[in-house]
């Protein structure tokens, strides 16, 4: 079972990110994926997060208590949720948006210039999908194939190609990063 949290601010597609991964896991990877969104005064424009629990069996408790993976795209999200990461948890950070403090020794931090990549692709708005590619490569919680199937219908049809490019950008960056980490030199 994996508890995943996506954190950022309203308008970045944080909720959408939870839905896409949850959909990939439950519809195409044959797992159970339960997504809940944080509503509340903070949901409009301000801090925003979505929680996803992915499991081999039915998810009984639907919320994230201690996350295995935290994907952050805002400073506030980072500050608020970094402490809830489990020991050995994975922290994925958009380094263009978040200044990360000296990391906790017990977690694995992976940085990606997601917003810059998205801008290079032509639209800043797809930064969250770059993050999803990165997430898929680093964590392996969902498969590349499942994510590929989950994207159509989850993003505007006109922007599907762009989103696929963004996803692949993040995914390839993640794979290379892992290769480097495994095999420095």
């Amino acid at each position: 079972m994996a508890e995943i949290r996506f954190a950022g601010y309203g308008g970045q597609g944080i909720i959408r990110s939870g839905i896409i991964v949850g959909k990939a896991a439950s519809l195409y990877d044959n797992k159970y994926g339960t997504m809940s969104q944080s509503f509340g005064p903070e949901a409009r424009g301000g801090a925003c997060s979505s929680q996803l629990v992915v499991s081999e069996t039915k998810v009984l408790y639907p919320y994230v208590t201690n996350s295995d993976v935290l994907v952050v795209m805002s400073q506030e999200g980072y500050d608020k949720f970094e402490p809830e990461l489990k020991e050995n948890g994975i922290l994925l950070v958009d380094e263009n948006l978040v200044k990360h403090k000296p990391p906790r020794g017990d977690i694995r931090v992976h940085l990606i210039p997601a917003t810059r990549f998205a801008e290079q692709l032509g639209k800043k708005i797809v930064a969250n999908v770059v993050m999803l590619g990165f997430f898929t490569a680093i964590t392996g919680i969902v498969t590349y194939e499942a994510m590929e199937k989950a994207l159509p219908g989850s993003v505007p049809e006109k922007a599907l190609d762009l989103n696929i490019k963004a996803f692949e950008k993040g995914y390839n960056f993640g794979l290379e990063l892992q290769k480097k980490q495994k095999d420095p030199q």
Partner: protein
Amino acid sequence: MKADQRDVLSGVYYIDGDVAAGYGALAAGCKFIAGYPITPSTEAAEAFARIAPKSGALFIQMEDELASVSAIVGGAWAGAKTMTITSGPGYSLMMETVGFGAMLETPFVLLNIQRGGPSTGVPTKTGQADMMQARWGSHGDYGLIAIAPESPQELFDYTIKAFNLAEKYRCPVMIMSDECVGHMTEKVVIPPAEEIEIEPRRWYTGSPDEYVPFKPDKDLVPRMVKAGSGHKLYISGRLHDERGYPVDDEHYKLKYVRRLVDKIKCNKDKIIELKEEQIDDADVIVVSYGISSRVAIRGIEMARERGIKVGSLRLVTVWPFPDERITELAKKVKALVVPEINYGQVVFDVARCCHGNANVVLVPHGGAGVHVPDDICDAIVSVAKEERKIEEVIEFKTKLEISVFGGGLKSKE
């Protein structure tokens, strides 16, 4: 009868509970929803409003909840299957007309995505504190049915069932879901139309001149006709005889209102749906409903890992209440543990049915969240060790309550 293909969006979806309920209503043959937006039920109305026009059904946003529920009672008498959707304050506003609908023996469905109360409370977070309001919210005596789904899939499936029960027993049916399930996104499978069973209305087909609107069949439920079809209907929320004519006396009060109660009571066995797990060897049984039963299963697993023989009785239908089954189980076990997201509602009906044969433990939760499974597990473990017979309902001190109130809050043990 099978569902109409035009109403069933067969396929596999990743949607939230609210949306699933909207899809379920359409699949059930609902042709008319009137509602007034209120968090956290708005998405259900939105979902229906989006799909209804492609299927010849209609959603209207009324001016308030009083209008919404009045309109769907009217719509039902015009021949349509109807529903309204609300939460918290809106639910309170609808209560008068729930009793009106029950008095007129109108089939309709009310979806309540429960949120934290009282008053405005916590609009965006969960609660289960409307359960007694569902049962007793409108003045006077009447029977009704309430169902508590625990997942988006169930919000689809049980919305259909709610419509079927409403038609079969001609009474209001409450879908008592909550924000957690309503805003939870999961896989939902919508089967082909031919796999969905739909209960048709109990139409009267005899001569219009001989129609007696409130003359019951053997199962105590009368037959219906459509307004505007030449039956000279006289339908009133006032106490009435079988013709519908106003009467005042004790005799009719007893006869008619008794039937409103009895048509649910006497058909209880057909209405009630329970899900039992690991009951056979159990010393302790967790009695729960809705989202709490889902979390409870995890608590039960944890307690089993600690060697406690514990099972689950899930009330899929909460009203009518399964008195007999609880009485029977209370004789076999040491204790019944009731987690609910309130400070004690359904637990008192559990206690009533136990007749002192088992200890009854309430695991309360103030709302704006769900129980953590540890709390349910701890309650199971501690009551399994309890040797005394305790007459009152025992209130279990959860970690959350201890952390908020310190040691100051005393349980009744």
